[in-house]
């Protein structure tokens, strides 16, 4: 099984990539919740009104998930959240593409002048993160993990 290979540096590198990506993704959104709320609104998924609440909370979830993955704290919980968030992102982007609405991604930067459009590439990137999360969740050893200590 492929899972037999999920140990040692592969797991740690996957964790660090995911962690760095999520911390980086949270930074601009934490600084500009208003802009992020506008971008969420453009996705047309949420009932009008609650995008602000999501714009306030989601970046912090990304931030803590990223930090915990890097620090080796509650890795399993953080990985489950990575999967949940990426599934939601993929769904959001797919439905926007399917409906033909061209919008800013709001994935990493919410303030860039040029804006980053959504597309197939964005979805593939998220699927890549899902695979990294798969590696981390089914890891065979628990090196560089500090809380909760197990095995």
């Amino acid at each position, binding site marked *: 099984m492929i899972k037999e290979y999920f140990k040692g540096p592969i797991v740690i590198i996957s964790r660090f990539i995911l962690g760095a990506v999520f911390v980086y993704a949270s930074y601009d959104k934490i600084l500009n919740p208003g802009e992020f709320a506008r971008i969420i609104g453009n996705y047309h998924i949420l009932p009008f009104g609650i995008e602000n609440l999501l714009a306030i909370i989601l970046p*912090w979830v990304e931030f803590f998930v990223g930090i915990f993955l890097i620090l080796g704290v509650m890795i399993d919980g953080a990985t489950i959240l990575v999967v949940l968030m990426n599934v939601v992102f993929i769904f959001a982007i797919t439905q926007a593409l399917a409906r033909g609405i061209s919008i800013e991604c709001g994935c990493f930067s919410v303030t860039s002048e040029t804006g980053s459009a959504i597309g197939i590439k964005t979805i593939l990137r998220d699927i890549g993160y899902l695979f990294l999360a798969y590696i981390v969740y089914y890891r065979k050893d628990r090196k560089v993990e500090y809380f909760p200590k197990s095995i």
Partner: protein
Amino acid sequence: MNFKNHIFQVYIILSLSIVISLATNLIRTDSIPLLSKTLEQADNIELDTDEPVLLTISLEQAKEFYEKNTLFLDARDEAYYNKGHIKGALKNIFFMELLFNIESRQSKNKPLVVYCGDPGCGDSEDLAFNLQDAGFTKLYVFKGGWLEWSAANYPSESIK
């Protein structure tokens, strides 16, 4: 408190994020309201009142404004504007430039119609709020936007 339970860890991370995010939003100077406000729909179009207005309008009302030569503002990105926009609408690339363009045409208490892509986009509201801050008093947000206008085949133009 079983920290080895994966789902329990999820709850911990989520709770931590919610508490920290709400607390941060409470203390920061540029905090946003937890729930965004919705604009009210205009019943009838009063062009001669002096009272400040910020309301949404329907497609028919937008057409009515158009026929009265009201200035339309396109809140979308330039690429969408170039592909097609309501005839005569101004584009919003640089806000200061837009303000200058509006003021070279009319005074701040004359009506303005703002629109973006479709009923769900928030850009038109954002622009309307910015214009309100800049001192414009009669602002109408055409929620249907380019989607309804183009579907109705009303006058439009594009930049090649």
